[in-house]
């Protein structure tokens, strides 16, 4: 995956950088294979975006971020739109109060275990729901480990 394609909120690890005029400066800032980068937010129209390298926040245009090959870190929360079907724990939800209330009514709240079904519907403790793409994008999850291996029970 290219850094320009990494979802906002994700933490990624640099794999490879294509050589260009700004590579020396990127190296100086610490954009190097093995280093973790956090995708913070994007400007209007999706370009440029803010990234955190160590504790410095930098702005990079997509044309430069494209030169950086990354992979998502294992423990990085990802939006539900970005993951393959399976069980996940909700880490945080990036939205306003009202959307949060609506989601919590479906059983999607921080810490809850949810399952993304093959048809992209979401199974929660409250039932199975069709959640719109816009909302799915705001739900950040991390893959479930052993602790949630049991079936999600309907309440």
């Amino acid at each position, binding site marked *: 995956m290219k850094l320009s394609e990494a979802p906002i909120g994700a933490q990624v690890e640099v794999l490879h950088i294509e050589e260009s005029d700004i*590579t*020396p*400066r990127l190296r100086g800032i610490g954009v*190097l294979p093995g280093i973790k980068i956090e995708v913070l937010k994007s400007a*209007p129209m999706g370009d440029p975006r803010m990234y955190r390298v160590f504790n*410095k926040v*930098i702005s990079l245009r997509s044309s430069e971020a494209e030169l950086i090959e990354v992979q998502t870190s294992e423990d990085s929360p990802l939006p539900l739109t970005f993951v393959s079907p399976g069980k996940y724990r909700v880490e945080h939800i990036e939205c306003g109060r009202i959307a949060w209330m609506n989601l919590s009514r479906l059983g999607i709240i921080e810490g809850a275990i949810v399952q993304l079904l093959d048809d992209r519907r979401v199974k929660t403790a409250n039932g199975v729901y069709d959640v719109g793409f816009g909302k799915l994008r705001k739900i950040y999850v991390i893959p479930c480990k052993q602790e949630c291996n049991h079936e999600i029970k309907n309440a």
Partner: protein
Amino acid sequence: MVITVGLIGNPNVGKTSLFNKLVGARQYVANWPGVTVTRVEGATSYKEQTLHFIDLPGLYTLSATSLDEKVTRDFLLYSPPNVTIVVIDSMSPEQGMYLLLETLELNLNVIAVFNAIDEAKKNSIKFDKSSLESYLRVPIVLTSAHTGEGITELMETILATFRKPNRPKLLDYGPEIESKVAEFEQYFEDKYNKRFLSLKLVEGDKFAMELLKKDVEPTSVLPSNMSDLAIKIAKRRYEYVMNVLNRAMSKSESAITSMEAIDHVFTHKYIGIPIFFALMYLAFNFTFKASEPLVGLIEVGFQKLTDLIGSNSIFTSLISQGIINGVGSVISFIPSIFALFFALGIMEESGYLPRIAFLMDRAMYSLKLTGRSFMTLLLGFGCNVSSVMAARGLTDERERVTTILVSPFVSCSARIPVYLMIIGIAFPNHRAEAFFVMYLLSIALTALSARIINKIVMKGESIPLVMELPRYRFPSLSNVATYMWNRGKHFLQKAGTIILVASVIVWVLIYFPDPTNIENSFAAMIGKGLQFIFAPLGFQWQTVSALIFGSVAKEIIVSSFAQFYGGVGNIVLDPVTASALMVFILGYIPCFATLAAIKSETNSLKYPIISVVYSLSISYILAFLVSIIGRVIV
């Protein structure tokens, strides 16, 4: 005995703040990277030693690419100071320590300063000084330029380091790289620091290639896997840095701060830009509301003084009309200028500006400029000369020249009195709004010109940008005051020099040959002679003459107007002509100082000429459009 001390570090780590603390100087420090684009020097004495400090432009790596970074590298390479201070940001020390490791390869006498230690303490970041010293093998000083902590210790350390130089060699890059470095050393002359240059050569640095011995062909010696080696070198440095920090720094998990919440709103996808414009509008409103009483008071004072002296003889006329009325009309706007700079100072100081650059970057992209040049242009609101100079910080030559050429369209402080005067006459009830519109127009004209210049004069591609977004900082009153004073005092100096001289010249042109009737003066002859050019815009001869005199410095327009009409209060302008006049003034001819700066920064006569021709034609066209549209509407 003079000890030279160089200050280097990443951009925006507080080198200049530290410099000010050390020297007791008042260099302005902004909260955005790239303020220092040339070296600034200052001296102080400590314990009977003279310490000569040199504040150098910030950089991330000694593989310099932009002009200002080259200033720093060349200084360290060709005239190494007795002591070099590498300033590191305690809040994000990794990048600074990387630069420290690079600097040590230059075989310099180095002190590492961890600055902003007060902020680090607040965020529960702790450093173990003695283990930092043992791993980095250089003296470490923890300072805060903000509170003054550690400054005396730093002075002591400078003396101690000077007496007992210490040039440690820290890193071994492993057999693969070390053998290459050893091999490359033969390609450089003895006068250079061979190890540094060989290492830079392995990193693929273009500058190191230029310094190769004459008979060495770069392509024949360089390894094919250079990019891999460069990454290995950088990784080795960062691994070392992280190892040191693992042992010598402790920090707690950071929680979401209120600053992050504010940032979320300020850089919001949709409301970020509207917020920016709202803040600018607020700043202009503040400019008027805060300065209004004082401006009125000064105006009345000068008016009374003129009346008192009278203008019966040639001498009293020179004093009252030429000097008091001419210069006073400009001086009375000084409170407004200071108020505006106060408001802008808060914006800069807080770290808000780079966020605007971030939001606007996309728009700048379509103009083939970057957010960085946007910040450079913002400097032009103070004085166009400073933005022309600050363009040195731009990596790309094409972007630099474009930024220089469009700089004059950023409405500088010299134009403020002119707008204020015209707005006061023609739009007394909508002053903040009219002023705000002029600034919007200035931004639009700058953007349009960048577009045109890129199309016609400089054809080229867009350039990459890596820009750092600094932390927010609560603006301190003393910093904002310094900012306001540094920019405002320039104006006062001008009032005492060029504006004074020009006012007297204008007075001579008005007084002779016929003191009784201004219509027969030389000034009127000049204005009437050229009035036909401006007839389509509806300008009177007074306006034409004022514009001609004002091409030296824009404030002279105010002073000429005041003299032609015997005081600002007597001027009559209808709103349409006033609008056309303001639009014309916004664009026409950069002042002499700016033209001189353009010439020296581009090192050619071509660009100042382009600038004059282009600005005259575009402002004439725009003013013409305004007057046509205005007459249709009114």
